[in-house]
């Protein structure tokens, strides 16, 4: 088994999930079964293969450019008002579970 109970607890913490005991047991089983299947990727020698993060890298880019310069075609100057006007406060807060007229409200961050 690749993934242990401890791993599930650790990854759940990273992912900001709590998971019930029942869910953790199911997760342990499913992750191990999926990762076993995924192992077949190791049949391939990829030592000389570059990684592909996105498709956009394959068109419209100037091959001579490096790093983020390759995607300069996709950037634009900042516009003060944005491409559309910023949302009014009221609209931006309308979907929040808790807000006052100005801010999103959350439970206390600092405990004393």
């Amino acid at each position, binding site marked *: 088994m690749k993934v242990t109970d401890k791993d599930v607890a650790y990854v759940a913490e990273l992912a900001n999930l709590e998971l019930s005991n029942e869910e953790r047991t199911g997760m342990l089983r499913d992750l191990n079964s999926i990762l076993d299947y995924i192992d077949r990727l190791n049949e391939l020698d990829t030592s000389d293969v570059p990684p592909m993060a996105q498709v956009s890298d394959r068109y419209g880019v100037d091959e001579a450019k490096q790093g983020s310069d390759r995607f300069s075609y996709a950037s634009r100057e900042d516009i003060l008002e944005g491409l559309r006007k910023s949302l009014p406060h009221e609209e931006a807060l309308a979907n929040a579970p808790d807000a006052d007229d100005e801010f999103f409200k*959350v439970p206390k961050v600092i405990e004393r």
Partner: protein
Amino acid sequence: MDLKSLTIDAARSAVQERKTTALALAEAHYARIQQEDGQIGAFLTLSKERALEQADRIDRMAAEGKTLPPLGGVPVGIKDVMSTRGVRTTAGSRILEKYIPPFDCTAVARMEAAGAVVLGKMNCDEFAMGSSNENSAYHPVRNPRDLSRVPGGSSGGSAAAVAADMAVVTLGSDTGGSIRQPASFCGVVGLMPTYGRVSRYGLIAFASSLDHIGPLAKTVKDAAIVLRTIAGRDPMDSTSADVPLPDFVAELGKPVHGMKLGVAKEYFGEGLDDEVRQAVESAIDKLKKLGCEIVQVSLPHTPYAIPTYYLIATAEASANLARYDGVRYSRRARGVKTLSEMYRRSRDEGFGAEVKRRIMLGTYALSAGYYDAYYLKAQKVRTLLTRDFDEAFRKVDAIVTPTSPTAAFRLGEKSNDPLAMYLADIYTVTADLAGIPGISVPCGETKDKLPIGLQILGKHFDEATILRVANAYEQAA
């Protein structure tokens, strides 16, 4: 009103020529939804007010004798992963059950600017994660051809609505096959455009490097009309490509004679249902009779596509879904005392089992110590899968395959085995990884009268060719 044969052009010209009104068309579809959707479950939200307002605008244009835009008065449905201003958008998830977006998805805005009447939002697997629509947090969708079977997923509602004549066309999204596979299961046309062809602005993100918006339609021509409407550079999405836009509709009529179509043995191996194989082989025969040359090609890395996909898609999803934290627009758990408890409990309550599973897998694949072995490895294999297509497309104009290894399966059949469910996407995921376009077009039925789909894959930004082949096949079939 006969809704079955109502295509985009038929609907638009009936409104233009005042044989009917956009209002009457919308109401006929709402009546059909009222009658049918209780047992199918394709819609999550109806946007009646918005639809009738738009219908009225179109009817006034027609009354004034103005030429209607290409989708003038056409009733459409939008998968519930696309933001609609003022209309609830859930992504099929509890965590967004009350979310009312303050803006429109570009594709939706373009549909409406072209005159489309948005009837409502289509059911789907939660955050588009699934192949059967059983992962919707609200209710499953049933296949209109056989209510004991799934419509496919994740755009199951979008496919079922078109199949049951509850909308003329719908928009879906495809990250691993989510347009093409349900189209195949429900017997409709489904088109995934090239990555970058259609703006993703306003599409609720699942896996950003793999997400595509595209149409589900009754005919290939309708799919082409919708593509022409929603395609093109959008300054709101930096990955939307600034490339020439052919007239996809005009290109449809060009002959397919002499075209080279690739057939790859990797798409006809173990796991392919016999009836599906026979239907696809006879479709290929038909294309041969239409003058296409069939050429054997090899896509040797195909068996590695599913593991690659499930690492990359889940890694991206784990990052994209971090935003659902119970603060700005997602549901918050009650009675929480601290910020971190609020995050965890809101997400625990708001996400369904499959979404949690994918967040966990993706987080694991990105975590320290496993990044190189999993995520980076998958990115490298993605290069190999893409090179397979590059190589094949040096020899052929398009590649024909089955869309799915089987016809629609039964509800509950695979829902307890995530891996078996993932394998339903075996013929569709590779195109998403490579960013090439693909279309599924109906090619017959099993003896149980379940639809079968023929998939046609094309070169980057060459939707015109696959639409042409699909159209020629559809016309001849």
